[in-house]
């Protein structure tokens, strides 16, 4: 399963999503769990879980459950598990959106990340069962209800892990609203070229666009993922070239050149880069709500 996921991740998720631009960014599989922050944060959360699991079993002996209406409990466990899955998915979605990674801002990445969190949580639960039940009483002592209870534990721990990691990540990555609003401002202000030529309104909006560039540059500098850092560097380089030009070249970089036969290669390259960056930023500001 993990090998399959790794292959999928290497191939990229975006092929199935027509709104996301084609890209050549690289990515590490662990970033779907860590979002570019150190894995020690995740390890810390897992260790805390493991201790919690041991204590749970300690006070819940005998571990196998016997109830009068097992089907009812199975339905209850399943419903609660699904609730936990949804909560995990929502937190994972938020972390993916805040990761500033062009590779992680799509539903494919969100689902894979959610699955990985459940795999980690499932590993903890299975370890607990192996150590505390299978090793002591044998496999036959585990009934169907136990399996659904394990599912409940797994989804609950995945949620705890996700929420805990989201809390760790909070101080390192920008809020979703700030990221999306700044991108929206940047895209809107890039319309300065449509203002009447050589007017104060055009110069004011150009200034607003350059201010948006600075603001966005500050936000993107918070990227911790490999793809996020690469994108941040691309944006930084583009902004720095853009600001070195004067008005006419800036306009050509944003608008492109209209001549049928000739063009300035340098400005054409910068224009293509602008279009690519704009498209990726719009991908990053897509709201899934």
């Amino acid at each position, binding site marked *: 399963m993990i090998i399959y996921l790794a292959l999928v991740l290497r191939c990229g998720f975006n092929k199935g999503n027509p709104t996301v631009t084609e890209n050549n960014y690289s990515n590490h599989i662990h970033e779907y769990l860590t979002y570019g922050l150190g894995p020690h944060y995740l390890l810390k959360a897992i260790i805390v879980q493991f201790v919690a699991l041991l204590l749970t079993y300690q006070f819940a002996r005998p571990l196998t459950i016997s109830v009068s209406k097992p089907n009812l409990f199975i339905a209850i466990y399943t419903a609660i598990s699904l609730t936990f899955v949804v909560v995990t998915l929502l937190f994972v979605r938020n972390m993916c959106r805040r990761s500033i990674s062009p590779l992680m801002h799509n539903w494919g990445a969100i689902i894979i990340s959610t699955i990985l969190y459940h795999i980690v949580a499932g590993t903890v639960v299975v370890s607990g069962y192996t150590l505390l039940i299978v090793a002591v009483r044998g496999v036959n002592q585990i009934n169907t209800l136990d399996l659904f209870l394990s599912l409940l534990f797994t989804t609950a721990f995945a949620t705890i892990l996700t929420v805990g990691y989201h809390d760790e990540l909070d101080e390192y990555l920008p809020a979703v609203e700030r990221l999306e609003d700044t991108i929206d401002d940047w895209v809107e202000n890039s319309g300065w070229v449509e203002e009447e*030529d*050589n007017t104060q309104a*055009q*110069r004011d909006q*150009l200034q607003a666009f350059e201010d948006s560039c600075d603001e966005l540059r500050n936000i993107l500098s918070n990227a911790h993922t490999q793809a996020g850092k690469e994108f941040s560097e691309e944006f930084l380089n583009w902004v720095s070239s853009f600001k*070195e*030009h*004067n*008005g*006419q*070249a800036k*306009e*050509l970089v944003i608008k492109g*050149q*209209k*001549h*049928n*036969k*000739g*063009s*300035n*290669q*340098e*400005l054409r390259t910068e224009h293509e880069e602008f279009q690519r960056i704009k498209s990726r930023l719009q991908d990053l500001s897509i709201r899934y709500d």
Partner: protein
Amino acid sequence: MIEERYDSLDVVSPHEQYLLVLSESGSCFGSDFSDLACEIKERINGDELTVQEYFHPLEDVTNSSRLLQNSVWLIHWEECLQGEDYPCLDSFLDPSMFPNYAEAIICTEDGGYEKAKEIEREYKRTSVAYSRDTLFAYAKVHFSDFNPTHTSGKERVKSWNNEICERLGI
């Protein structure tokens, strides 16, 4: 668009300037204007002046405010002026209208030196290049004078920039 006036010589450099290309085919003297522009840029002294070639579409040639923002105009004689398809260009090139310190270089591929002299008599405020070498020579002279690496060049750039701002109402 030109962004601002230059209030002093200190703010003139570095300066980015444009090489306006008016041509239908985008080529002249057996080369693309892009390649000719690259060779012109290679001949510029110092690193205080950056030159960008700008290909203006001929269907929008009446947009004088856009043309004015370029200090060097490269005009393909046979494609733009010979057939008088763009009469507004004649008025833009009139000595009383053409901005100070700007340079219009008309490029003619047929007729050589004699033809060049004939065109120069018609368009008094222009230089006429009849080969790659004469084109490069005219451009080099212009960008030697119009170059903020030295004080007189800064004064020219400032004066040209502010004259254009004046004309554009900035």
